[in-house]
């Protein structure tokens, strides 16, 4: 580790490591990625890792997810097998009154080219026979799928390392000083400052704390999600279901909870029990499945729900990428942020996602 870089990325989750890899493809810059922990010890390692498109609304946000999902097969050819599977996604509903909502969703998503079908009970059960006959119907899209987040982040890092990106783990950033044309970054494990021309904040749920080092107010919330995991079962779920999926090794991951409890990552009995109940409501035969463990993760959600992407206003050469659904958006965000830093403009307009939108009424 030298002391001078062109670009320093703070955060090595699925977003930070993707940006690092995509930047490294240009093979022009000296890049360092710093993380306070070890890869996958935070949000990116505690997710069901759906690559989920079909009910991301409004449609302009869905569109972003769609482009990202489309990049996955291409990404896999470049960095290796990340176990991406485009399974198709089913979001079941139980009430007849949800039909209207489902039809409106299909209509809205059609505007940007996301094909969402509204299926009757019989049509759903034909696709996924394990689902409960009590469901009323479901929305379905063949764009949806899932990925192995552990493989994804590991392969981003390995590919970036091949392109000479450096990484520093277990090394929290303690101070950042903006000087005339560069940043000085102080970390826990290094006495001297690291100097860099550009800095990219990719701290996920910890964006707030990192932003404060630059005197910024990054408007994000922390949201806890709890997930339970069965022992490996014979393959029986073909699709990614809104709420659960079956991994390649047969385990079923179940969970769809949201709690605002800060950085508390404990699992709690009440949510685990509700999650178990949801699993049985969706798939009655799961009652007999054995649960091996549970885990929870702290996810980040920007105050208005949409990604914060792009240059940081009023700060020279500083960028931010903070969003929910990082796994879905990772290949696209990596590509766009690399374009922004290297070329100065992006192939998809990011104006809507600027941090500026929060500053106008601050």
């Amino acid at each position: 580790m030298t002391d001078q870089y062109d670009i320093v990325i703070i955060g090595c989750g699925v977003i930070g490591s993707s940006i690092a890899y995509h930047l490294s493809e240009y093979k022009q810059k000296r890049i360092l990625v710093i993380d306070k922990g070890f890869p996958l010890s935070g949000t990116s390692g505690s997710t069901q890792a759906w690559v989920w498109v079909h009910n991301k609304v409004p449609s302009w946000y869905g569109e972003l997810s769609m482009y990202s999902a489309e990049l996955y097969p291409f990404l896999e050819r470049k960095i290796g097998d990340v176990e991406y599977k485009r399974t198709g996604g089913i979001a079941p509903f139980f009430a007849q009154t949800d039909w209207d909502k489902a039809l409106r969703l299909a209509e809205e998503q059609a505007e940007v080219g996301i094909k969402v079908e509204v299926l009757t009970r019989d049509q759903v059960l034909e696709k996924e026979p394990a689902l409960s006959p009590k469901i009323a119907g479901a929305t379905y899209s063949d764009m949806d799928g899932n990925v192995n987040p552990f493989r994804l982040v590991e392969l981003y890092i390995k590919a970036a390392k091949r392109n000479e990106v450096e990484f520093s783990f277990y090394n929290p950033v303690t101070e950042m000083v903006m000087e005339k044309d560069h940043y000085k970054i102080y970390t826990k494990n290094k006495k001297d400052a690291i100097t860099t021309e550009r800095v990219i904040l990719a701290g996920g749920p910890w964006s707030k704390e990192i932003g404060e080092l630059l005197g910024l107010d990054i408007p994000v919330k922390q949201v806890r999600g709890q997930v339970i995991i069965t022992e490996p079962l014979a393959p029986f779920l073909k699709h990614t279901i809104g709420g659960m999926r079956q991994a390649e090794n047969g385990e079923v991951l179940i969970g769809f909870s949201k709690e605002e409890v800060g950085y508390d990552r404990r699992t709690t009995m009440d949510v685990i029990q509700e999650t178990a109940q949801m699993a049985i409501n969706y798939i009655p035969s799961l009652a007999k499945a054995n649960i091996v463990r549970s885990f929870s993760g702290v996810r980040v959600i920007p105050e208005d729900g949409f990604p914060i992407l792009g240059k940081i206003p009023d700060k020279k050469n500083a960028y931010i990428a903070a969003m929910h659904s990082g796994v879905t958006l990772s290949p696209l965000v990596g590509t766009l942020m690399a374009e922004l830093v290297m070329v100065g403009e992006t192939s998809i307009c990011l104006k809507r996602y600027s941090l500026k939108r929060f500053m106008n009424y601050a």
Partner: protein
Amino acid sequence: MDKSTIVCRCEEINVDEIEGAIRLGASTFDDIKRLTRCGMGPCQSKICMNLVRELIATNLGVSISEIPPPRMRMPLKITRLGILAGKTSSSNVVSVFDEASLEAGERQND
């Protein structure tokens, strides 16, 4: 132990894979777990816990007492999903009356 010795029986992870993760910078059991799946299987690291801690200690040249154990996850012991949901009575909960009837030769389950 040679390189191909299995450390984690549930996920069939060998010494070489553990050391590969350590070379990547992993320094705790949980780091290794996320990279290799070691300890994620049905036994939930009951078998591999100390073997892995020993490997970390040896490879990094530190005392095993400095390597924390993996994070334990609810429900600690394999449990039916239906029981977690509260629909089925748990076979693990035994009252003294059940104990008595067991002694009398009755079967507790089924």
